[in-house]
C-alpha cells in the first residue's frame, strides 16, 4: 500500500486534472452537441443532413485519432492552444456527436400522442412545446446523457500519452516505480474513476427520480 499512501497527493493531483478535462470537454460537448442535436431534429432537411454527416464522421473515428489530429496536426495549421486545450477540443468534438444522438433518442422517446393531445385541446405551437414536449424531453434525455458523460470520464484517460498529467498518466508512472505493488496501484486508481462514474450516475438517478415522467 506504500505506493498509494506515499503518492496520495500525486494521485489526487492526477484526478484533479482528470476532472478539469472532464469539465472542459463536457461543457464543449454539451454546447456543440445540443446545437447539432437541434439541427438533427429540425424540419429543414439540409440541416438534418449536416447534423447526420457530423455524427457519422465523428462517431466513427476513434478518439485517439482525433487527439492525434488535434495535438500534432492542428499546430501545423497554426492552431495551437497547448496540449490541454487541444485535447479538450478533440474530446469535445468527439463527445458532441454522442450528445447529439442522446438528445435525439431522448426526444424521440416522446409518444406522438402527447403532441397530438396538446394540439387537440387547442394549444398553440409554443405552448405545446413549453408545456408538454420540452419538460418530457429534458427528463428522457437525462439517462442517455449520463451514459455519455460516464464514457467521457473514462475517455479522458486517453490524454495520458500527450503531456496531460491526469490519473492514468500517474498510474503509468507508479506502475514503473513500484513494480511489486502493481495490483494495489491499479485497483486504487480504478476506485478513483469508479467514484467519479458513480457520482455521475447517482446524480442522473436522483434527477430522474425527482422528475420521473409517469405514464
Amino acid at each position, binding site marked *: 500500500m506504500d505506493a498509494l499512501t506515499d503518492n496520495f497527493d500525486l494521485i489526487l493531483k492526477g484526478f484533479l486534472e482528470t476532472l478539469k478535462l472532464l469539465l472542459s470537454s463536457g461543457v464543449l460537448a454539451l454546447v456543440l452537441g445540443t446545437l447539432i442535436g437541434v439541427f438533427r431534429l429540425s424540419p429543414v432537411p439540409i440541416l438534418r443532413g449536416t447534423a447526420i454527416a457530423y455524427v457519422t464522421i465523428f462517431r466513427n473515428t476513434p478518439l485517439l485519432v482525433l487527439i492525434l*489530429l488535434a495535438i500534432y496536426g492542428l499546430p501545423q495549421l497554426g492552431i495551437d492552444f497547448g496540449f490541454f486545450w487541444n485535447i479538450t477540443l478533440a474530446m469535445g468534438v468527439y463527445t458532441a456527436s454522442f450528445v447529439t444522438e442522446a438528445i435525439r433518442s431522448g426526444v424521440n422517446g416522446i409518444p406522438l400522442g402527447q403532441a397530438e393531445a396538446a394540439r387537440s385541446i387547442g394549444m398553440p405551437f409554443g405552448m405545446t412545446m413549453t408545456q408538454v414536449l420540452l419538460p418530457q424531453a429534458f427528463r428522457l434525455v437525462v439517462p442517455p446523457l449520463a451514459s455519455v458523460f460516464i464514457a467521457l470520464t473514462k475517455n479522458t484517460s486517453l490524454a495520458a*500519452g500527450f503531456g496531460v498529467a491526469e490519473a492514468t498518466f500517474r498510474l503509468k508512472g507508479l506502475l514503473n516505480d513500484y513494480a511489486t505493488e502493481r495490483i494495489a496501484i491499479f485497483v486504487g486508481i480504478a476506485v478513483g474513476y469508479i467514484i467519479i462514474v458513480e457520482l455521475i450516475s447517482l446524480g442522473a438517478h436522483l434527477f430522474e427520480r425527482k422528475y420521473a415522467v409517469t405514464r
Partner: protein
Amino acid sequence: MSSVLFDVPGPRAARRHRIIGIATVIAVIAIIGAVIWKFQAEGQLTYAKWEPFFTPSLIQLLLKGLAWTILAGALAIVFAVPLGMVLGVAKLSDHRIIRWPAWLFVEFFRAVPLLMLIIFIWSMQGFPLDTIFPLVLGLLLYNGSVLAEVVRAGINAVPVGQAEAAYALGLRKHQVMRIILLPQAIKIMLPSFISQCIVALKDTSLGFYILAPGLTFAGREIYKTFQNYLQTAIVLAVVYIILNLLLGLLGEWLQRRFGGESKIQMVGDVVRAQPEGATARA
C-alpha cells in the same frame, strides 16, 4: 414529414425552410473552403505531404496495420461474446454466490477506463504473442462486461409468459434459459451487439499506447518519418469511418435477416422494444 416537434410546413414555413437550407449549404461550403484555404496557406496540400499514401510499400504498411486491427478486434469480440453470455446469465442466477461475483466483475470492468486496464495488463509483462495480447485481453474483459449487461437486458426483455409456458411444460431452469430465453434474447440484442463491435474496433486503436501493432500504430511510423501529421490523421480517420460504416451495414443486414419483426416504432425511428434495454444504455 411530421413529427412531435413540427407540423407539415405550409407555404410560408416551406419558404423559410428553403432559405435556412440554402444558408446552411453556403455555411458548410464556406467552412470547407476555409479549411482548404488554410491547408493551402500552411503548405499542407503539397504532394510531398500526401505522397506516402500513394507509395506501395507504405500502403502495404498501413494494410498490415489494418489486418492487425481487424484481428485484434475480431479476437476480442469472438471471446467477449461467450464471456458476456456467461456473465449475463450468471447475473440473473437465483444463487447469491454466483450473482454477486458476476455483478462485481461486470461493474468493475465496465467502470475502469479501458486504456488503464490495457496499460496495467501490459505492465505485468511476460506474455506470449507480444504486445497484441494485453490489448486483446483488455478489450475482451471490457467488452465482455458490457455485453453481459446487454445479455441481461435482452433476457429480461423476453416476455415473461415465454418462461412461464416453458416451466408449465416441465422444462428445467437451464433448459428454459438455453432453449427458450437465450435464442429470443439474441434477436433483441442484435443492434446493441453490432454497435459494441464498432466500439471494439475503434478501441483497438488504444494499442497505440503500448506499441501494439495496428492501424494507428502504422500511422505513427508514417507521420514520424514524413512529419505529415495532419494528412496521416485524416487518412486514418477515413479508413476507420469506412470500416465502421461497413460494419454498420453488415449489422443492418443481420438485423433484417435474423432480427425478426420485434421492432416497435416510436416517434422517429428509435427501437424501444427493450424496456430498460440497450437503447437506454448505449
